[in-house]
Structure formats: C-alpha cells, structure tokens
C-alpha cells in the first residue's frame, strides 16, 4: 500500500518545465504554452480554467500519454521526454493512476476484475493477493456489495469510484483525474470527491484533478488556473477558504 512508503511532504513528485504542446496543422493550434510548476507528495491540486484553456491537454502531458512539443515532465526528478514509449507505459503502470470523466471501465469485466487489471499486468502480487487487494479497495469506497457486478449494472457514481479504485490498484504516487465528477449528479460528485480527499489524507498520494467546477476546486488544497494554455494563477488555498 502507498501508505507504507516513507513520505516526505514537499518532495517534488512531478515537475513540469516549460511545457508547450502545439497541434501541428495548416493553422497550428497551441494547446499548452510554457507551463511550469512542481507538485509534491500528498497534494490535492485542481487545474481549472474555461473550456478550451488546455486543462485536459496539460493533464495528458503530465500523464505521459502525450509528448510535449517543447519542455519536459520530470517524475521524481527524472526526465521522461527522451524515454521510449515502452518505458513511459511502465511509469504509467507503476506510478500514475488515471481517472477520466467517463468511467472508462472494460465493459466485459466485473468491478473487481477491472481493478485487478493493472495489478495483473504489473504482476507484483500473487493472483490471490491481487484479488484481496481489489476487494479491499472496493470495500473502502463503499462498493463491497458490488464487486462482481459488470460496469453496466452500476450507477454512474459507483462506476467512477470503481475507476478510482482501479487508478489506485498499483499504489501509484500520483493520480491524474480528468473531470472525475463531470458526468455525475451532485450526490455522486460528493461521494467521489470524498473518496479522492480520503486517498490524499490517508495514503499521501497526490491527486491532480482537472475540473471546471469552481466550487469543487475551491475545496482542494491548491488551484492552478489556466487561461489560453498558460498559467494564470497558481494559489495555495488556506484551509479556512476550503471549509
């Protein structure tokens, strides 16, 4: 479990240096422009901004799903822009968990099997341990009774929590969430937000979440506001504001 790891607050877990992403074409489109920041362990960061401000594009760059046109992403101080795709996949598998706006579960696999998929690929645990861990994760998120259900048999909020459990499967240090509550009603939003919050406080895993929900963003520890692909404000929110 991630909680077992020695945790030093403020260690630069992730560092973005002058990140720029330009979509090539007849008229090149600048998605992200010269973005730099660092994220330490145990941070809960919101990336906000109007639509089209490059929030999601930035998240894909941070998650090594996309390569920047310029600049670089460092994970634990290690440069990643020169690594081959195979190594990037390995870093995603071991250290980064993704949660998307839509649940993105494999439809033919049960909730527990979906959570087990990253563990099976990594192969660090025995099949029995994998099953136990998947069940435990789902239990933590209040899904103890739904482990054997297929995604289609779950509600939107439940699916999204399964997706969060899957993101946590290999105990990553960083979870990247792209509008994790974007398709949920207010009650389900609340449940998922609480789940994410508990992960940060209990395991020290950092979460970077893209959201356009300013109310939700204001409850996180830190807010990075993007306008036209560049950082407009990057502020740490004092606890008083959050509550």
């Amino acid at each position: 479990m991630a909680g077992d790891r020695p945790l030093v607050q403020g260690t630069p877990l992730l560092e973005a240096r002058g990140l720029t992403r330009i979509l090539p074409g007849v008229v090149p489109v600048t998605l992200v422009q010269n973005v730099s920041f660092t994220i330490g362990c145990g941070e809960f960061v919101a990336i906000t901004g109007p639509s089209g401000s490059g929030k999601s594009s930035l998240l894909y760059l941070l998650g090594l799903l996309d390569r920047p046109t310029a600049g670089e992403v460092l994970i634990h101080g290690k440069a990643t822009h020169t690594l081959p795709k195979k190594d990037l996949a390995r870093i995603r598998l071991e250290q980064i968990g993704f949660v998307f706006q839509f649940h993105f579960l494999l439809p033919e696999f049960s909730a527990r099997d979906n959570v087990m998929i990253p563990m099976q690929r990594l192969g660090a645990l025995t099949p029995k341990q994998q099953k136990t861990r998947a069940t435990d994760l789902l239990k933590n998120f209040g899904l103890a009774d739904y482990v054997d259900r297929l995604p289609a048999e779950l509600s939107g909020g439940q699916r999204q929590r399964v997706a969060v459990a899957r993101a946590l499967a290999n105990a990553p240090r960083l979870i990247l969430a792209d509008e994790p509550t974007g398709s949920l009603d207010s009650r389900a939003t609340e449940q998922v937000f609480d789940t994410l919050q508990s992960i940060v406080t209990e395991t020290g895993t950092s979460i970077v979440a893209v959201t356009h929900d300013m109310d939700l963003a204001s409850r996180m520890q830190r807010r990075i506001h993007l306008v036209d692909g560049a950082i407009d404000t990057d502020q740490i929110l004092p606890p008083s504001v959050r509550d």
Partner: protein
Amino acid sequence: MNLLFKIAGTHVRNRLRQTIVSTLGVALGVGFSIAMAALMQGSQRDFVESLINAIPHVEIRDEKRDPTLQPASRFYQAVAFHGLRPLDDIGGIRNPTEAMASLRDWVDGNLAQQLSGQAVLRYSGQDLGMTLVGVVPTDELSVSTIKDDMRRGRFEDLATTPDSLVIGDSAAGRLGADLGDTVTVTSASGLSKRFKIVGIFHKGVSASDEALAYAPLKAVQILLEKPNVINRITLRLDTIAEAPAVAERAERQLGYKAVSWEEANEGLMEAFAVRNVIMYTVVGAILVVAGFGIFNIISTIVHEKARDIAILKSLGFPEHDIQLIFVLEGLVIGILGALAGCLLGYGLSSYLSTIRFEFSVGREMTHLPIYMSVWHYAIASGIALISAGVAGFFPARRAARLNPVDIIRGAT
C-alpha cells in the same frame, strides 16, 4: 499473458456471430483443401500404380549412354575424320544367358529377355510394317500384364506352337487375318518365314494394337539373323522403390543402358509436380480468402474497442501487449477454424471415397481414389494459421498505434 488472453477472449465472444462466420470461412478453406489434396494425390497414386503395372520397372536396352567410338578415334586425337567407313555393329546384348544369370543372382523380381526388330507382315495381299518382338513366353508373362490383355487365344501357346504369333486386334483387322491363320513375315534383310496366329490382344494403346507382334524368341532370332542375341531385358521388381538403384547397378554391371520407370516417365513425373504446385496454389488462395474474413472481423473489433485500447494504454499497457491481444484473436479464429476444417476434411474425404463410378469404356474405375496423409492436414492447417496470423497482425498494429489521447478526447 493470461490477462491478454482473457481480454482477447472477451472481444471474440462479444462478436460471436462474426467470429463463427470467419471461423467457418477458415474451416471450409482447410476442409476443402484437405479433401482436394486427398483426391489429387489419390488419383496420382492410382495412375502411377496402373502405369507401373503396365510397364517394366527397369528396362535394359542394347544401347550405351555414350555413343560408341569408331576405332580410328580411339587411336588418333583428331577433330574430325573424313571418308571413314563405320564399323558395322550387329548390336544387341551379346551372351544373353550369362547376362540374365548374373542379373538373376541379385535382382529381387522377375526378368524377361526380348529381341525386337522391324518386319513386314503379309496376308491376303495386305502388307503391314510391324515391330516384331521375340519373347520367352513364360518369362514375358512374369514381367508384364499381357495375359490380362489377351482377347482371343492364349499367350502361353507361343511356347508350345513353333513359329507362332500373337498380334494386336487392330493389326489383325487390317490384315483381315484371324486366329489360326498363317501370315508371312519378312525381315528387313529380305528373309521370310511363315507364322501362325495363336492369339490376339488388345492393350488399349493404338501404337501396340496396330503395330506390335509377339513371337517365340528363337524364331525371331533366326528371322532377323541375330542368333543368340537379344536387345532388351525387362525387369519386374518385388519392391518398386528399388527401381532406380537396380537400374544403376545393372547398368554398371552390364555396361548397357538401364532405365527405371521413373526415368522413362520423367515428363509425367514433372507434370505431377506441376499439378501439385497448382493444387497448393489453389489451396493457398482459398485460405488467403479466409484470411480476409479474419482481417475484416479483427478490424471491426479494433474499431469497436478503440476505447478499451485507450484505457489499457492509459493504464500502462505497452503497444506490444495491445498488438498481441489482437494477433491472439486472429490466431484463436485460425486455430478453431483449422481444427474444424480438419474434421470437415476428414469427413469429406471419407465420403468421397465411398462414391462409386461406372465407366462403359476402357478401364473401370469403381470409386474415387482417395489418399489420406497427415501432411495434407498439417500443410492446410499451417497455411490457415499463417494467414490468420498475418490477417490479425495488420489490424493489431493499427490498434497498437492508436493514440489514446485522440480517443479520450473524442469521448469527452
């Protein structure tokens, strides 16, 4: 790997109907290929069998592999000679008794000696040029199927009746001669002798039926003025496969040209080889078509499962894994198809072998000749698997190269 199998399995099951259709495509391809191969090779073996029954397995002739040198060229190193009178060679295998005895020592099978030459048969004012073959009747019967070809009279009577003749039915018809008639036979050098017809054969080969006549060896040696000479030894072996080896050894031993049935029918063997190439090309084409079916379904799955591919990639599955999933799907269809195809092929060839035919003319073929071989199954299945793998490979590569960001963006 287990996980990849599981994912591949769910994809294939999800598109069950299409999977079954493409599996059937492969199965039909493999099944028909196997049945066709069994039929082709069966008919080839059937044909070769009847061929080697009708001709000698090894034939030794009074020829040399290399032309005989004239005495002058043996003594002088010259480019050409003019005005030389060539040495007359009486030809034939001399001292046949000794040659036959030395062969009998080691050859497993039967031998027969012949002396053949050209002669003209005359009867009731009709002349007919023929090849006259002098035989020892009992020996000849042991190496050929002439007994089965006899229409009237008995071949054995050549041994008991002096100056007797067995001729083809066409020749008899053209001469207007019948069993028991006496014809005049004139050799190239002008010698004449009277022979009595004691048998008429029909081989179904017009060259033989029109222009071949058998007579006792001694009588022919006298007529052709070649006493104690033969020019052909025919062998019928117990083991046909030994023919080339026996031919080689006999040639080394006697110094005369010995030809095995395979060498004599080289053109035919080549034709069979070409036929096999054509067959496997057709088989390959059938399976390539089946491969397109596989390509089609896997392309569809890749298209449908683009989102799953993006998920797996974002979870940290390398491209190699994604590609493997879809290649596996192709192979699963290929393997299932090949197995079903082997069963179908076996059923088809078993059924074909029970079909009966009746031919009014010529040699009767009672049923389709079917030859089953493990190789047919192995080759057809192998080609099916290769084409399934290739058919899976291209969509799989496309899947592996899909950019997850494009898909996630498209979905949100």
